[in-house]
Each structure stands twice: as C-alpha cells, then as structure tokens.
C-alpha cells in the first residue's frame, strides 16, 4: 500500500508538471493579445510604453525557452503565482483570503447531497419498480438535467415572487456586476447561512442526483447477493439487513463517485458564486476573466487542477482502506 501511494504521488507530480506546462503554453499562443489587453487596464497613458512594462513584468521580452519557462517553473515551486494586473496584489494572498467561503459552500453542498442522496438511494433500491421508485428517479433525472445556474435563478425568482424573500445581499440585481466586489464575508452566522442557503441546496441537489443514481444501482446489485438471502433466512430484521449488510457494502463504490463529483462541484461553484456574489475563489476567477486579468485566471486553473489531482489520489486510498479486498500492486 505504501509503495502504491508513493508511486501515485510521483505520478501526480508528473501530471502537475504537465498541467503547469499546458498553462504556460496557453499564454504563449497569442501573447500580443494578452499584453494589449493588460496594457489597456494600466494607468500608463502611452500604450506602447504600457505594453513594454507589461512584457517586462511577465518576462515576455526574454526567449521563451529556456529563460521564460524555467523562471515560470521556479516561481511555481516557490508558490509564487505572480500578481494581479489590476490590483497589483499577489494572487496567493488573495487566494488565502477567499478560500474560506468557497470551502464553506463546497462542504455545505456535499452535506446536502449526502443527506438527500443516501436515504433516497436506499428507498428507491429497496422499493424497486414501485411508484415511489419511479417518483424519486424522475426527480433525480430532473436535477441531473437542469443546470445549476438555471435552477438557482428560478429559485431566486420563485422565492422573491411567492415567499417574498431574498438572500440578504442584493448585488445580484446588478446585470454585469463590475468588480471589485465587496469581498468581506458577513460575520453574522445567520446572515451567512441565508446567503449560502440557495446555492448550497441547488448545487447539493444536482450533485446528490448523481450520487443517488449510483447508490441505487449499487444497492440493487448488493441486494441480489447470496449473503443477503442468508441474512433474510436467518430472520434478521429488515432494517439490519438493509443498513448493516447491504448499505455498507454498496457505499464503497460510491466513494469514488464522490471524488468525481468534487470536480463538477468546483465548476458549478464558479457559476453559483458569481450569481450570489459569494467572495470565493470561483468569483475571483470570473472577475479575472471579465477584467482580462491573466495571472489571476492562470493561478485559479493551476490551483483547482492540483486540488483535483490530489482528491483523486485520496479517493483511491480511501477506497482501498474501505475495501480490504482491493490490493493495488
């Protein structure tokens, strides 16, 4: 097992290196455009002067290989992600400030997803092909198909129209909100939860639908096993058979799905954060794109990609730990 983890870690390093290289290449496809866009945002009035300044700070005036490439890799190794074109603050500091709300939203969504998906998946498998199964599955298909941002907008609309309630922040009335946004997170827990409520529930249900479908098919598989029949024959209670014998075994493959789902959660949160003006890293990325702030976008891509690479490793390790039959060679 240790050998496996070490090997996977090394392989992950290779993948991260490739990720960094891809991002490096992306900027060099059309550097003049980037410089042009960046120069338009600076205080310097002479555009040529501004372009030269930008080129110098980005190091674009040196040869691409080896100078630029190794400077870039060296900066990454020192966790120096450069500084924003607009605010001139180091991107790393900004990320530290903004990671909190994103984590909060992600964890809340995962909680909602699990709380909904686990009971629904079990009921739907145990009552296979009864009316309740059909109802639950149709609802799951609905949440799988309808995109989170459409659902979020509709829920906002419905809540305002019929319940006369809106989340405390009103910035989302702004059509194309212009950064910088107010990024100070509300201190009051109750206000905070009110802001998070709709995105957490909407995003959580979308994720929950995926988990529920997978859990249901796993449960159906397990319920047909011999040892379940044995358990029935022994006269065990239904609750014990389903929870202790079936559910526990069906849960193991679901762990991998949770890992996969984390990737979509991150993407979904980019959208949800920008609808609800939650000052997390997703919103930061969107601000970066809207302002052509290339270092910010690049840092976000690197950050999220490396996060996902390690989540995948963690999922594999947890999987082996839960199911001792799995032996990674």
């Amino acid at each position, binding site marked *: 097992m240790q050998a496996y983890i070490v090997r996977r870690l090394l392989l992950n390093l290779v993948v991260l290196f490739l990720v960094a290289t891809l991002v490096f290449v992306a900027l060099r496809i059309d550097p003049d455009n980037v410089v042009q866009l960046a120069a338009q945002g600076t205080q310097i009035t002479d555009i040529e002067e501004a372009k030269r300044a930008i080129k110098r700070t980005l190091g674009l005036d040196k040869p691409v290989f080896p100078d630029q490439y190794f400077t870039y890799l060296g900066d990454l190794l020192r966790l120096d992600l450069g500084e924003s074109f607009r605010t001139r603050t180091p991107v790393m500091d900004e990320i530290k400030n903004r990671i909190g709300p994103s984590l909060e939203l992600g964890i809340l969504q995962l909680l909602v997803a699990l709380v909904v998906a686990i009971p629904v998946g079990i009921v739907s498998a145990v009552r296979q092909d009864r009316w309740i199964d059909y109802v639950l599955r149709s609802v799951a298909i609905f949440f799988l198909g309808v995109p989170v*941002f459409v659902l979020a907008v509709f829920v906002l609309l419905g809540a305002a129209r019929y319940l006369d309630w809106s989340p405390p922040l009103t910035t989302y009335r702004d059509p194309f909100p212009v950064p910088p946004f107010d990024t100070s997170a509300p201190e009051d827990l109750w206000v905070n939860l009110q802001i998070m409520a709709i995105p957490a529930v909407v995003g959580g249900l979308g994720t929950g639908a995926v988990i529920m479908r997978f859990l249901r098919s796993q449960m159906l598989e397990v319920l047909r096993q011999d040892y379940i029949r044995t358990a029935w024959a022994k006269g065990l209670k239904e609750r014990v058979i389903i929870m202790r014998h079936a559910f526990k075994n069906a849960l193991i493959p679901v762990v991998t799905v949770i890992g996969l789902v984390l990737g979509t959660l991150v993407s979904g949160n980019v959208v949800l954060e920008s609808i609800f003006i939650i000052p997390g890293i997703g919103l930061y990325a969107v601000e970066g794109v809207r302002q052509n702030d290339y270092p910010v976008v690049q840092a976000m891509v690197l950050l999220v990609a490396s996060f996902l690479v390690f989540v995948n490793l963690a999922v594999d390790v947890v999987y082996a730990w839960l199911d001792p039959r799995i032996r990674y060679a």
Partner: protein
Amino acid sequence: MQPQEATMGAELAVAPPALQRPRIARAFGGLWRLVRRKPLGALGMAIVIGMLVLSLGPPKAEFGLPDLPDRPLGFEMGKPWLARYHPDDFFYNERGRLATFEGPSWKHWLGTDNRGRDIWARIVWGTRRSLFLGIWALTLGTIAGTLVGLVSAYFSGLFDLLFQRIMDAIQSFPALLILLMVLSLTEPSLRVLAIALAFVAIPSVQRIVRSVVLSVREEAYVDAARVMGASHRRIMFRHILPNVIAPVIVIFSVGLGAVILAEAAISFVSPSSVPFTASWGLMLAEGRTVMFDHPGMVLASGGFIALAVLGFNLAGDALRDILDPRLRLM
C-alpha cells in the same frame, strides 16, 4: 379494365398484405415500440429533433469556410423558418416608443425583452448558435479523441503511459475554468470557443475509445491481419476502428448536452468574453437584472437551456441502452 384487375389479383396472390406491411407503417411501428419501451428516451429525441427543426433556415448559395453561427455548414443560412423576425430587430408600440416587456401576443409569441426585441426570435436564433457550436465542437473533439485513444491503446507501452498522463493533466482542469482561461486570452469568437470546447472533450472520448481498443486488440482476427502482413494503419482503421463506432455515437449525443450547457454557462458568467449574437446564456444573464418585475426573459431562456440539456441527456441515455449497454456505468 378487365386485364388490369386480373394482374392486381395475381400480385395479391404472390404477396399477401399481411406479410408485406407498407414501409411507413413499419417505421411507425418501430417508433411506437421505442415510445413504449423508452418513453423518456423518445421524449429526449423529440426535443433534439425539435431543436434541429428550430435552427434550420433557407440555404443561400454563398459557399465558403464554415463560420458560426450563420454559416455553420459552409453556406450561408438565412433566417430560421420558425424565427419570424431577426434577433436584433427593435419593435415600437403605437405611441412610437420601444415596445419593452410586452406580454405574449400573436405578434410576439413570447413577448418582448428589455430592449424591445422579440424573445421568441432570439430563442430560435440562440438555438442555432448552441446547436451548431455543440456539433462543431464535438465533431472536432470526437475525431481527435478517437485518434488519440486508438493510437495510444494500439501502440501501448511507454507511449501509452506518456499519452495517458497528458490526458490526466487535461482532465484535471475543470472544463469551465479552462474555457474561461482560453477566452480571457483571445478575442471573443465562436470558432475559438468551439475549438476550446473540443479540447475539453478529448480526454473523456479517448478514455472510452481506448478501453474498447484495448480489448479488441487481443482478438484473433487482429492477429490474423497482422500475420497476413497488414500495416499498422490498415489494422487500426480497417479492423479495429469499426468497433468503436457505437460508443462514439453515444458519447456524441451525451456530449452535445454538456457542450450546450457549457456554452450557456460561459455566456451567463462572463458575457463580455463571448460573441454578442443571440444566445440563451446571454439572455439569462440579461434577464436576471429585471427578473423580479419582468420574468419573461429568464423563464424563456432558462426554460430552453434546461429543456435542451435534459433532452440530450435523455436521448443519450436511451441510445446508450440500445447501442451499447456496457457503457452504462461510465
């Protein structure tokens, strides 16, 4: 008249009508079976066909390079037949003011938007943009992904290992962020968007193709071809590639939904980095500003995005069950 009747009688004797149902009836029978067995899948396919019909318009004979959204197939496509108006036509009411936020009427089926444009027309033009963007992106992505998967699995070994790590690297980017990055680097253009979407689609396509090729590679007929002296290219394209067709069709239909969703999400999140033609995502973003007083724009655009994504998902699921049930757990 007499001889003619005689020949008709002879024909009947040869082929009794019960055995030779007319072709149309057979087609309807197949359709009816599909509806009964996979009602959701049939619904999805109906939505997909509906979208296709919405986006079609009279072809004009100006051939050239394909360009989105108005020249998706290399020739200029005129106003969609079902659109009624141009998406950027402004309408005025009888007092000469811009007719903003009008309710549904015979003139404007879904009413008008915040700048006095016909919502139905914008929805229909947006359908063309979404659909053809998706088709182009997936065509490129599927071809590239299939080639990568085929070559990588066929030659295996160190080459395969290296290629798969590159694919891991691409896959570890969340699609939305990579698209945003590409768009922040370039001028807004649908062509760039299509290429970026294709790039994002490559890893998942190649993974499925690769798994099929890995098993087919060991078949006896592949060995036989090799023994007969067939070249690598011949074995790959003539003997192995046909096995990949069914999964690729399934990926294509499921992927179209995902691509349409991604385009809408990007237009919604960052309207300034996409071309400003009529688009569902842009309408949703614009409509959000006024939705509490005039929900029409949000309801129409959001409804169509949801319907399209749902439709492609359902159609893709049904196609998968029919064509290749092994893919179910992917």
